[in-house]
């Protein structure tokens, strides 16, 4: 049975697409047949982060509308043979995704793939609801910041009431908290919510913490998911997330300020 995983947040720009590309790539690198779907109709972006934007011929909506076969729209990742990408449509018709259409495509993908990663658009409208409806698990991508945490809580409410599993009274969607753009320096200075704060408020299990990192922008510039950069802090943190997702028990990293400057060492040596 394929597992359907939605990467969602409510709030925009928190790192959903960055996370989808890295988790999908990470799972595929570990040998799992994985497909990642861009649900952001009208604002296609996943293709850029995956570095396959010039190979897009058909898209998700073309398949739903019967204008293309699924295998024509799927793009085989050039780095990882176990990975395929289903790009979003650039149509302005936000209602182009229908329950029946999405379900049909997911059922077809479930025959060939172990993991189906759904990169949700921002918001709590049609596109976001479509992305989460069929999910078995959800990665709630959250920045340590008031509006993002509040929106994550709203998305949790929606998962618990409007997902297929909720509507059909099945076992609830398995929820994972992923805190991204975490800045330990600012946390130490009392300027940013810490991990315990966010965990306490949202009250769901933490699957990982991705530090704020310059390597993320660099990776997106190059069209290579940051998880492939095993030298970088964010890349390592995403690798840890994939391992935890697959059931490994490993401690969280990058929670403390990395390098201490001279002055900070002078003042900070006591604690």
């Amino acid at each position, binding site marked *: 049975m394929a597992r359907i995983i939605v990467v969602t947040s409510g709030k925009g720009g928190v790192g959903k697409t960055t996370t989808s590309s890295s988790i999908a790539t990470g799972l595929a690198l570990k040998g799992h047949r994985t497909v990642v779907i861009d649900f952001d109709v009208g604002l296609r972006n996943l293709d850029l982060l995956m570095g396959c934007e010039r190979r897009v011929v058909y898209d998700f909506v073309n398949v739903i509308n019967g204008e293309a076969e699924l295998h024509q729209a799927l793009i085989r990742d050039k780095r990882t043979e176990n990975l395929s990408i289903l790009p979003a449509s650039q149509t302005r018709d936000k209602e182009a995704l229908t329950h029946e259409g999405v379900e049909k495509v997911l059922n077809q993908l479930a025959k060939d793939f172990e993991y189906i990663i759904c990169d949700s658009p921002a918001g709590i409208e049609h596109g976001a609801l479509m992305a989460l409806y069929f999910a078995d698990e959800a990665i709630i991508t959250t920045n340590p910041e008031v509006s993002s945490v*509040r929106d994550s809580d709203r998305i949790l409410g929606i998962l618990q009431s409007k997902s297929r599993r909720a509507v059909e009274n099945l076992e609830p969607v398995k929820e994972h908290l992923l805190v991204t753009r975490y800045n330990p320096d600012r946390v130490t200075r009392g*300027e940013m*919510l810490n991990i315990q704060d966010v965990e306490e408020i949202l009250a769901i299990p933490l699957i990982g913490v991705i530090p704020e990192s310059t390597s993320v922008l660099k990776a997106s510039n190059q069209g290579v998911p940051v998880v492939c950069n095993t030298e970088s802090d964010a890349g390592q943190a995403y690798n840890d997330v994939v391992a935890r997702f697959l059931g490994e028990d490993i401690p969280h990293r990058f929670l403390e300020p990395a390098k201490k400057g001279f002055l900070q060492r002078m003042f*900070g*040596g*006591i604690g």
Partner: protein
Amino acid sequence: MNLMQLFRSSRKEDNSAAIAKERLQIIVAHERNSRSGRDFLPAMERDILQVIQKYIEIQQECIDIKLDSQDGCSILEVNVQLPN
């Protein structure tokens, strides 16, 4: 705790993260409360409407029901606009 942190904790208004946490706890609790009420409200609204309609002729639009909570106490507010 290091010296820098000691400095800071003496100026509480500087710890904006603590303020953020407090505000979040309040708003999230509030929103969860109204969420959990939402499920049965439409059905209850229908039932109340039927009871009133047994005695007075009113339309669906004339009834408005809200479930709110303040200071750990839930308030059910039923507004019925009667025809004149």
